[in-house]
């Protein structure tokens, strides 16, 4: 009993650095400017105001930036699912000549961090006239290195499916794409969920790529936009930044709390397989 209480106490103390920043972010965004650095620090705003939230939308086209981030993340997630489930299925299930070599080439993508290739990628998209558009933020994750982990997870999943399932489908006269679409893919929901969650988060969090590729405010994504709420001297407008930060974090957090099992197990699976 004493041990139990100790464990609970330790767990509670450990929670502070994980939970407090999010709490501080949300509550500070509701504080008027004269309260945000008040001493002693207050866990709750004395005169709560939505002023910072109004400024978020006045100082930048934040709604547009939010839509940008959201649609890019959705397109990247959908595209990655298509590319990675097809490739993962082929590597796991389809006997074709050269499959081993192709697999090694694709896996090479895991060894090359995005940061290493950012200069040539910038030049390539610049040459195509696609800098300051969303294309690089969409195409590179779907087809390039970031999708390799997704392909790998899909492959690991398809390998575990019993062969007999496909035999039955083949007797019914299904071709390869039919077997993929009608037999294997519907069974791959856990893997699809895992890939969808980490792909969405990856795109949502992207920072280096947007600041390299995008230059006009109406094209910005949220992470990039958050850092732009500064005064004339470059000092951060903390309550405005934190209001925008809260708006970017809260919806994902709510989805996470509702589906925490899928998130935790999905991302753990992604980590294990990677």
């Amino acid at each position: 009993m004493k041990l139990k209480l100790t464990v609970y106490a330790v767990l509670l103390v450990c929670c502070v650095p994980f939970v407090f920043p999010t709490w501080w972010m949300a509550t500070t965004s509701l504080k008027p400017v004269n309260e945000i650095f008040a001493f002693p620090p207050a866990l709750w705003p004395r005169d709560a105001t939505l002023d910072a939230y109004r400024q978020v939308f006045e100082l930048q086209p934040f709604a547009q930036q939010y839509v940008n981030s959201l649609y890019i993340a959705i397109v990247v997630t959908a595209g990655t699912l298509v590319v990675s489930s097809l490739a993962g299925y082929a590597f796991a299930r389809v006997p074709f000549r050269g499959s081993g070599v192709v697999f090694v080439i694709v896996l090479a993508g895991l060894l090359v961090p995005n940061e290493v290739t950012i200069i040539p990628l910038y030049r390539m998209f610049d040459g195509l006239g696609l800098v300051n558009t969303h294309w690089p933020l969409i195409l590179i994750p779907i087809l390039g290195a970031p999708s390799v982990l997704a392909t790998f997870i899909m492959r690991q999943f398809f390998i575990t499916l019993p062969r007999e399932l496909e035999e039955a489908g083949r007797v019914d006269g299904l071709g390869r794409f039919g077997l993929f679409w009608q037999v294997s893919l519907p069974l791959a929901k856990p893997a699809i969920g895992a890939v969808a969650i980490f792909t969405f988060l990856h795109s949502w969090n992207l920072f280096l790529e947007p600041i390299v590729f995008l230059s006009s405010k109406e094209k910005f994504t949220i992470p990039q936009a958050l850092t732009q709420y500064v005064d004339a001297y470059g000092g951060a407008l903390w309550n405005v930044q934190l209001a925008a930060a809260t708006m970017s974090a809260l919806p994902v957090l709510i989805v996470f709390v509702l589906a925490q099992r899928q998130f935790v197990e999905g991302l753990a699976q992604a980590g294990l397989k990677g």
Partner: protein
Amino acid sequence: MTLLAEKPASVLRRPPERAPYWTMRRRDQLAGWLMVAPQLAGIVAFVIVPLGLVVWYSLHEWNVLAGTFDYVGGENYQALLDDPRLGPALRATGLFSAGLVVLNLSLALFLAVLLNQKLRGTVVFRTLFFSPVVVTLVAWTIVWGFLLQDNGGINGFLDLVGIDGPNWLRGDTTAMISVIVVQLFKNVGLNMVLFLAALQGVPAELYEAARIDGASAWARFRRVTVPLISPTILLTSILTIVGSLQVFAQIAVLTQGGPGTSTTVLVYYLYQQAFQFHHFGYGATISLLLFVIVLALTVLQWRMRKRWVFHEA
């Protein structure tokens, strides 16, 4: 008449069991290649060709603003070796990675062991520890930046208990500690759930046997748990080290590499050279160095696996 006479003859002449050209096998050849084509094309276009271009660029003096692109052979490599900022950048990278890996793995394992005590409500704690993983990275970084201000929340609370906290982001050591800690709490939940899964795979009989042999709790942890979860320790250390070499947003938002160059890690230095000073050729040389480091660490760790990991999962 002739037509009628010929017909049976032609039927007879046809080889009796000629297989169709498109056998399952041949169709799979085509289907397989079609299915991997987008991924393969993407890897070639967005990884392999760019990697080749990085090597090509590194052999050139390329100033985008001046519009010059001249072949200079190994000059960029010589310049990198002579660069007085290379040493500090490597040092900052090493400090950040080493600090993060040690703290991250220890804390992740510690939390996983606590959560594995099968108490009521551990799912709630697991959710709370994991929650920063889903908070937008820059949002998380901004609120920590706010907390770490000289007159910010952390020093405010320290002040309440009579401690005069430092100006965290303005001191060399405290700035490095700050970026490590911000990254630590952001992602330690991921390693924690990996460890939790591994711990749940350790058979209870082994603990029972060790207990009967009179092993203390620490001995059981050291001699039973650690060897059995060593594959996960290796995996998490690889993921964490490679991830730590890519840290960018936290540095850019919290310290811009400062104070001085104390938190200018390699990726941030690469960004500065290429996209702030417009030295693409030199930036490409730094990219290659980063690539070689990532590659070497990955290979090294996979080799260590044989000697160090108790059994293959």
